[in-house]
């Protein structure tokens, strides 16, 4: 017993005697081996073809997580019933099932300390169960009830509609919700589903029968992908899933969810200003970008990290936050666009009067990265940051199977991350510059500013320059929208 301790003490003393390196670069590290997990190692399929990504952790804590990913969402909302998918998704769980009424379902799940959540977003959703392993049989039974036999109790629907209505009324309260509603309109036009927010009238028009029909349409094995992780034996879990989810068949109303429609609209570049009496403005930018499968994707990722992403080290952060103290944070990203090209977009908040000056600094950085090759040291540092932090993304099994399942649902190539680090490493300074010149065209910028319009337009007295002088783009004032109808307010 005491021998290892003595050895450890001796080792400790020896280490203590070592000099401390003058700089962190002088520390020698043992190598850390990491290989990207392969989707195939986690993959299985149920009898009816539903793909399953499974990770058993027999030595882990006594918890099990099952997540059923569903393809479908508000892009399927009929005109005049905007909000249907969101309500149907949440009400699958909240409205109880044909065997277990809503209140009894709430009570039972909470008694079991289980978490069962259902939701549908714009293009997909999920039903997620997190439960103690000892209660798995009952939890899976409740999950199946929610998935296949939701009751859509009328009083729960009424309750949800009241909450939704109250939520609609608060749309103009926050800068981010105002911008969140307006930006899709500016980018994709009035005809695309992304701009089709619910209105008081569309919510009123949604009936219990609409929810049931929407659910019946989605409930098709071809619309589902499953992930499962936690404390169980793989074989037994697969048998259990096959006996439940694996027996699901498509009903007469079920449809394979159609392709998500891409927008046909071309955004009109400009600086759009919405007036809101607050001491700070929210600024969002957007430029047409690319898809993750594009050969330029890796270079675009590096470009964004140099310019906008990656916490404290990005150029825009250094300039606008750290040097000038104009914002608490600025960040951007290239959207990866499973269904259409993503955008390079991002945001910051600053004092109303500082918007024009901050945007000038922003555009100067955009021009600089197109004009000057990225110094080798900066490029290497950014590449190392992406590559070295990559293993941390794969730390938890639950996250790994969720990632494989969600990518399968939208149709990204399997094992698309396997050569990601090599692709990042291969990016050159010329690549960064080329991609910057291709994608960062200020003439295509859509800038949305929500803040006190008079102060925003005038600019800062310490850094003269009005908003109109920032860029050769039209400055367009947009009215806020009526929160209940989404019609422009005069």
């Amino acid at each position, binding site marked *: 017993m005491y021998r290892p301790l003595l050895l450890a003490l001796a080792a400790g003393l020896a280490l203590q005697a070592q000099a401390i390196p003058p700089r962190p670069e002088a520390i020698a590290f043992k190598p*850390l081996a990491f290989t990207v997990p392969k989707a195939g190692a986690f993959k299985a399929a149920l009898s009816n073809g539903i793909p399953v990504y499974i990770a058993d952790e027999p030595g882990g804590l006594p918890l099990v997580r099952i997540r059923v990913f569903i393809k479908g969402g508000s892009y399927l909302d009929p005109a005049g019933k905007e909000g249907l998918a969101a309500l149907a998704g949440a009400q699958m769980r909240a409205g109880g099932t044909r065997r277990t009424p809503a209140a009894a379902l709430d009570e039972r799940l909470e008694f079991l300390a289980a978490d069962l959540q259902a939701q549908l977003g714009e293009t997909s959703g999920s039903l997620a169960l997190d439960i103690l392993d000892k209660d798995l049989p009952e939890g899976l039974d409740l999950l199946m009830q929610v998935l296949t036999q939701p009751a859509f109790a009328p009083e729960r629907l009424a309750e949800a509609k009241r*909450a939704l209505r109250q939520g609609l009324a608060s749309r103009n309260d926050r800068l981010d919700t105002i911008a969140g509603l307006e930006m899709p309109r500016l980018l994709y036009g009035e005809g695309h589903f992304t701009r089709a927010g619910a209105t008081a009238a569309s919510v009123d028009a949604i009936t219990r029968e609409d929810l049931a029909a929407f659910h019946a349409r989605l409930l098709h094995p071809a619309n589902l992908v499953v992930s499962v992780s936690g404390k169980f034996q793989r074989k037994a879990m697969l048998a259990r899933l096959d006996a439940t989810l694996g027996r699901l068949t498509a009903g007469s109303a079920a449809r394979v969810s159609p392709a998500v429609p891409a927008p046909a609209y071309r955004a009109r570049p400009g600086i759009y200003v919405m007036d809101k009496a607050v*001491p700070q403005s929210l600024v969002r930018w957007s430029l047409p970008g690319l898809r993750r499968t594009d050969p330029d994707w890796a270079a675009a990722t590096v470009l964004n990290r140099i310019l906008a992403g990656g916490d404290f080290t990005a150029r825009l952060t250094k300039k606008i936050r750290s040097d000038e*103290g*104009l914002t*608490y944070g600025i960040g951007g990203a290239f959207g990866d666009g499973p269904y259409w090209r993503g955008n390079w977009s991002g945001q910051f908040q600053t004092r109303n009067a500082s918007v024009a000056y901050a945007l000038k600094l922003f555009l100067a950085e955009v021009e600089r990265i197109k004009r000057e090759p990225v110094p080798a040291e900066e490029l290497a540092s950014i590449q190392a940051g992406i590559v070295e932090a990559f293993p941390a993304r794969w730390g*938890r099994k639950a996250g790994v199977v969720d990632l494989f399942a969600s990518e399968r649902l939208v149709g990204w190539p399997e094992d698309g991350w396997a050569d990601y680090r090599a692709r990042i490493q291969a990016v050159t300074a010329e690549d960064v510059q080329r991609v910057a010149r291709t994608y960062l065209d200020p003439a295509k910028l859509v800038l949305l500013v929500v803040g006190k319009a008079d102060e925003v337009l005038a600019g800062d007295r310490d850094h003269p320059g009005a908003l109109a002088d920032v860029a050769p783009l039209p400055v367009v004032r947009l009215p806020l929208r009526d929160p209940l109808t989404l019609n422009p307010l005069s």
Partner: protein
Amino acid sequence: MNGFIQAAAAAALCASLAAQAPPILERTLPNGFQVLLVERHDEPSISCGWVVRAGSANERPGITGVAHLFEHMMFKGTRTIGTRDAVRDGELNRKQDEVMKTVREEQALLCERLRRGEIQDLRDPAARTPRLQAALAELDALVKAQRALIVKDELPKVYGQAGATGLNANTTTDRTFFHIDVPANKLELWAWLESDRLLDPVFREFYSERDVVLEERRMRVEATPTGRAMETFQAMQWQASPYSWPVIGWPSDISSLTRDQADAFFATYYAPGNITLILVGDFKAEEAMATLTRYFGRVPANPVPPPPVTVLEPPQGGEQRLTADVEATPFVLIAQKAVPSVHRDAAALDILAAILNGDSGRLKRALVQGRGAAIEAGCGFEGQKYGGTFRLYAAPVPGKGPEELEALLLDEIRAVQDQGVTDHELQKVKNQIAAYTYRRMERNGDLRDQLAEAVSAGTWRDFLAEPERLQAVTREDVQRVARTYFAREGRNTLVVRRKETK
């Protein structure tokens, strides 16, 4: 009904919870650092952090926000990290501070003019005296000269290149917490960088960082619908307690903080005896201790312990109300002053909150589902180091005012006071606690964060003891705390009404 079975189940549960308790090792370095180590080898990474027992409660009027500004300044580097020329850098810092003295003198004159109504806005360039304008120009030149020497954000850069993630820090009323996750082979890098910034920090870019904090304040408080109302409510609730001012500080304090004040705060509170180092993840404890001893052992012990917070909040003299008309969904918030998180009644208050909360809890059933009066209703007990608050909250359905929900919320407390809670309710909540005990330990980072909270308000043993303390709460305890802590004279009510958007 089946009280015996439930009791047996609870006993078995406690045994199984104890079996799942993480193996926490506690050590102390010779200079006073407390060290907590939890070895877990399922992922090749380590969640690292250190927590200093200093937050906004350790401030005083005039320097509110210094603890939080400090958190920002700790990222600005040291004599080694963040500069190409430490000597010249130090000179420029001193010159900036000299010029700032002139700026402060002139700003005091402007404040006097503001007081007399002769000017409207301290920031107005037209109001500046020539001396102030000249000083600002000189400061600007000094900042630019220093910028040429600065290796910008070198700390995050060195960490980032090494694959570390989640570098951040945050400040509360009671503590400041600096944390990051590093790959399992990079523990020594963490020890190097963190001991360096404790040993030898340089608060460069001090004055532009104050502006960053002012923007942070605008973002979190002033440009949000209820930010100011919540801040005013908190200031109303606490009288003597330092919890009355916001952690981020009052704007005029933030914009007048000096580097000297920051230095003094650092010297008082950022001492080994006031700091706990925490590691959770893939390392060997004895090897890690050797590394920590070697690096953190460099930091000199502070011979004088920091002054204690001696303020005891006096009993409230009566019920208080605040009505705010803002652009927000209406709601009512009732805050009752209760007890600190380590108080023996805290567990029963937690259980009371859990019984009232949830989809099948009393508040939602009574206010949301039963009467259809509210769109949401909830409550929570928040125990801090020197005090605590039990909050009840509800938001009305469209077309209704928030005031009528007050009585409904208080009815639910009265029901517990009069009739208590049921065995079934208590068991449900205890089942949730058991599951939560696992869930809060799943991620290395979560466990690290919870240990940091525990040592900030009490000791790390409180973290281990918490599940058992909660499981031991009886129906009588819940009824007793409901009777003890909801007296009218300790009540503070915030009513938020919608002001229509302009």
